[in-house]
């Protein structure tokens, strides 16, 4: 908290754009301006209009920079729109400036194209289902966008069913649209999620932490007992185990992981393994 306060003071007092390289893994605040590696030696933000774009001139950063969630491009300036830690990923191959994004804590989901989410069917109207995904507006889901569905062969989807699907249309001006097939027409695990199980909500940051390739939590959870989990990028988790008790334990662990240190977690898992 003290760190954040210091940042506020500095950004208000100095009112200068900071170099993105210098604030990596540090807290950034909405409204702040960041300078990309090629722009660092430029003047202040005041003369942004006349300042030549140095990105293409500099040989060391001769590629395109991707600004991910939490950042916004404004002309050739890079502005922060979310509060959180600034992260950076080196480009995978060849040149380019890599990816910058802000790792923020939030509960409100905003649909993003390509995200896999868990939705609840709220209405069935003619050709489309209305699916609640936790966004500002329910998403629409065509009955034809299921694997093997045709005009004659409708999928068996009821109001209240859980859907694991993907966004194909998601922008601020239009109604989000989901599908349950990939570009080849295969389900690949998408569609109606089976009976029973338990659905609960966590923060969006926790979902990303759990889905990270080297996540210890999931590896430990997987050793406990047979279980199935579905993670939606909209902060919803669906779990199912052999018994209701096991399912509840699972849900509680995952929820608690939000505010647990690695040691506390290990203690709990060892206690569970004993029982």
């Amino acid at each position, binding site marked *: 908290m003290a760190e954040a306060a210091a940042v506020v003071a500095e950004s208000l007092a100095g009112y200068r754009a900071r170099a993105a390289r210098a604030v990596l893994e540090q807290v950034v605040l909405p409204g702040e301006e960041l300078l*990309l590696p*090629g722009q660092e030696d430029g003047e202040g933000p005041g003369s942004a209009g006349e300042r030549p*774009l140095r*990105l*293409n001139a500099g040989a060391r950063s001769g*590629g*395109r*920079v*991707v*600004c*991910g*969630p939490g*950042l*916004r*491009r404004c*002309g*050739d300036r*890079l502005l922060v729109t979310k509060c959180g830690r600034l*992260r950076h*990923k080196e480009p995978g191959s060849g040149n380019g*400036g890599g*990816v910058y*994004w802000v790792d923020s804590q939030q509960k409100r989901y*905003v649909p*993003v*194209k*390509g*995200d*896999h989410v868990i939705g609840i069917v709220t209405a069935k109207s003619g050709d489309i289902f209305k699916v609640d995904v936790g966004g500002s507006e329910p998403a629409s889901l065509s009955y034809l966008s299921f694997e093997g569905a045709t005009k004659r062969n409708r999928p068996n989807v009821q109001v209240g069913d859980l859907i*694991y699907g993907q966004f194909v249309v998601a922008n601020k001006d239009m109604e989000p649209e989901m599908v349950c097939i990939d570009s080849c027409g295969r389900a*690949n*695990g998408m569609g109606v999620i089976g009976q029973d199980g338990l659905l609960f909500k966590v923060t969006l940051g926790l979902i*990303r932490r759990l*889905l*990270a*390739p080297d*996540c210890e939590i*999931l590896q430990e*959870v*997987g*050793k*406990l*007992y*047979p*279980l*199935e*989990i*579905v*993670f*939606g*990028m909209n902060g919803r988790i669906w779990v*199912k*185990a*052999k018994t209701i008790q096991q399912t509840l334990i699972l849900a509680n662990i995952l929820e608690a992981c939000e505010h647990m240190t690695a040691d506390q977690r290990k203690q709990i898992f060892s206690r569970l393994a004993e029982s």
Partner: protein
Amino acid sequence: MAAERKTKLSKNLLRMKFMQRGLDSETKKQLEEEEKKIISEEHWYLDLPELKEKESFIIEEQSFLLCEDLLYGRMSFRGFNPEVEKLMLQMNAKNKAEEVEEETVELDVSDEEMARRYETLVGTIGKKFAKKRDRANYEEDENGDIKPVKTKKMFLKPQD
């Protein structure tokens, strides 16, 4: 009066193809210029200041998928749902190495088996298309496979 009328042909008439031959170069040029003017006047254009936007080297992307290499969202552990477990391997392996997957494409029928199968098929299909007279030429060998009997064609001397 009469002479004046003779020299003054209308522009539209002069523009016609058969009139162009007799025209001198100066009037030709004049006509062309006028034509150009008419065409350019009829062209519409947007009365906007020129776009000064330079090519941007920052790309906006609102998805976390690109930033963090997230795993596939469906998981199953210790054999709870074998279908999902198989899918999990498949989807998560895709991120790591796509080339490896292509090499290990499972073959249902090996090439040798295919060749053996088609070997026997040659006779069977051949028999189907043979005429009734020739059908006797196809014989079944000890394996039950049908093979054409090779007979040498030769000239038969007609008997009288």
